[in-house]
């Protein structure tokens, strides 16, 4: 395939040329390499090359115990660390038939939603930067700091928290947790309209995003595009709604769906999801029941032989955890269905025929986290 393209490139009559975007490039937010074929300014092929941050997490999982695996999952989609932990914990707990205390379920759900807000804030910040609006970056990070402070207080870490453990949590929440979360909700409800004022209503932003990178519902389903990107195309794929885990069934919230399928639809899904997440936290934060923060577990966790599957909704889509156990303390085979890899598959389809600048905008709207693609 590549050779054919290079022949095309060497054809003196062809105006086509190849540009390597990445692995070091300001817009890929990581080490993704895109080989982009360009005619003038128009993109006519995009070939993603993965593997620049492949660490073999799935293989490493085969040699370590389940509580240790938690720490590796943080490093996949680092902005959804809590949700990644959650997926593995749920898989292990369901396999063992452990009933985790209700307090744990509440705290996990709240933490998941907090990290979803933090992730969407960072997405908004960097998406604005991809479009050339540099100020969004600082607005987004300013508010994300507040959430990271809350995480730091309870989990001891700001970024890769590894807070969940099979059976419960590493430690109980900080006594001020509820107070600070409520303060944050008041603070962020006031500042979220600022995001809209700065970017959403901007004429240039709208010209750059509306009708750009159209993804049809059929393609979203065929390519397995989940998360905000899938929902922006009308594909109802929210695991929190369809296969509730944690205490999502106790909270009232809407699955944000839009039918346009363009960059702006994906943008609006992100913005509205932040509001929905705040709604979920508001309903749960006052009702955290008293009790233990971890269920009684055996010192060495061994899963009965068999196959287990658990999926959760991360900030970027459906994360599936597939465990094959042969009865030992470490899995026989571990597989993560990471949302970003499926979302990356559709990039070429979305960006052909658009300009280089649109490729960056489309890539930004799909919200790629490269370590999650390569694992």
């Amino acid at each position: 395939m590549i050779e054919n393209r290079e022949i095309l490139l060497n054809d003196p009559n062809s105006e086509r040329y190849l540009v390597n975007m990445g692995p070091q490039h300001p817009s890929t937010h990581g080490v993704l390499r895109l080989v982009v074929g360009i005619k003038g300014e128009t993109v006519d092929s995009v070939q993603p090359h993965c593997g620049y941050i492949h660490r073999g997490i799935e293989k490493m999982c085969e040699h370590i115990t389940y509580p240790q695996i938690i720490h590796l999952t943080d490093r996949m989609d680092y902005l959804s660390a809590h949700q990644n932990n959650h997926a593995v914990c749920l898989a292990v707990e369901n396999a063992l038939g452990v009933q985790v205390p209700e307090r744990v379920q509440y705290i996990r759900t709240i933490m998941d939603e907090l990290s979803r807000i933090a992730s969407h804030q960072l997405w908004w910040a960097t998406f604005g930067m991809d479009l050339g609006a540099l100020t969004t970056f600082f607005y987004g990070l300013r508010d994300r700091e507040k959430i990271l402070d809350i995480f730091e207080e309870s989990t001891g870490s700001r970024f890769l928290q590894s807070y969940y453990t099979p059976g419960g949590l590493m430690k109980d929440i900080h006594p001020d947790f509820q107070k600070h979360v409520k303060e944050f909700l008041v603070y962020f409800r006031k500042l979220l309209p600022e995001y809209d004022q700065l970017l959403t209503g901007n004429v240039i932003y709208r010209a750059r995003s509306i009708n750009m990178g159209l993804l049809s519902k059929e393609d979203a389903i065929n390519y397995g595009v989940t998360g905000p990107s899938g929902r922006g195309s009308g594909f109802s794929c929210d695991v929190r709604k369809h296969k509730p885990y944690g205490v999502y069934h106790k909270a009232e919230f809407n699955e944000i769906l839009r039918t346009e399928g363009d960059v702006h639809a994906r943008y609006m899904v992100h913005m509205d999801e932040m509001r929905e997440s705040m709604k979920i936290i508001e309903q749960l934060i006052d009702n955290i029941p008293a009790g233990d923060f971890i269920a009684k577990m055996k010192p060495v966790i061994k899963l009965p032989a068999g196959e287990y599957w658990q999926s959760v909704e991360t900030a970027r889509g459906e994360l599936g955890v597939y465990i094959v156990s042969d009865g030992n303390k470490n899995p026989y085979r571990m597989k993560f269905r990471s949302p970003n890899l499926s979302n990356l598959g559709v990039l070429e389809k979305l960006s052909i025929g658009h300009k280089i600048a649109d490729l960056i905008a489309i890539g930004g709207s799909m919200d790629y986290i490269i370590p999650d693609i390569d694992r």
Partner: protein
Amino acid sequence: MNFSFYDFTGFTQSIDQALKASMSPFWAVTIELVLVGVSILAFYALLGLFLVYWERKVCAMMQNRLGPNRVGPRGFLQTIADLIKLLLKELIFIKNADKLLFNIAPFIVIIASFMAIAAIPFAKGLHAMDFDIGIFYILAVSSLGVVGILIGGWSSNNKYSLIGAMRSGAQIVSYELSVGLTLLSVVVLAGTMQLSEIVESQRDAWWIMKGHIPVWIAFVIFLIASTAETNRGPFDLAEAESELTAGFHTEYSGIKFAFFFLAEYMNMFIVASMATTVFLGGWMPLHFWGLTGFNEIMDFIPPFIWFFAKVFFVIFVMMWFKWTFPRLRIDQLLQLEWKYLLPLSLVNLLIIAFIAMMGWHF
């Protein structure tokens, strides 16, 4: 020597007479040229450094940050430290780059902006060259810079640079038209291209007050088009950090990069001072008809303070654009110029010519 902050004519003339009295006219003129050159060079460097510092402070203010605040009082020496760093850095040469063109490009860019600054009237009598075709000269000279950008982008032998340079070429060639037409509208009103006379024609009130709504339209179009001409955000497609890493100057390092960088800021100063001179009264104080007391208080403020206050206000507006708006796409950029700004400024010029013909302006 009679020195006054309000009128530099006497000051410059007395220097001229003192020199001519003590040596032959040839040497007197040579020394005068050197004096003017050195003072413009010093002014250029200091102003460039200050603008970089100021941009960083303004952008920090808009982004909830502090900006430079460690080196020197309020971070004032930060840009000087940066300049020293850039001077000491290694100049990297690209293997397959066209050596001659690659080296010459930053100089073309910086010389173009350097030449334009000579024709700007800073205050009464503080004016290096007072051409009778001043506006035409500045337009001609400032569009030379794009040649440097094109050469730099092409000779670096880098695809990003090439795309950036081609974008820049298309952009500047298009927006030059609007800049020219909007400046022409005031030329029609003032009846002269000489910058000092345009300033003089605004003694009772600035053109933006005298020229009704069409001059306002011309002013706004000029601001947009000149922001585009200086390759600044939201029109910074030639650099487009998130798309083309650094656009046309990707491969430049050290002081050559600093030349591009400095030229960008000085071009911003040049277009801001053109906006000031042509639309905002140059170094003329703010006057209102009939308010004699107010006008006399305004006269008390020296002209060069008026000039720099207005210029920095316009520069602030341009920085405001950059730190608020997302970047346009190349086809949208050209669409904006050819479909909206150019027809609008053409019609506007016609209306202004009609106003000038009927003598309806003040």
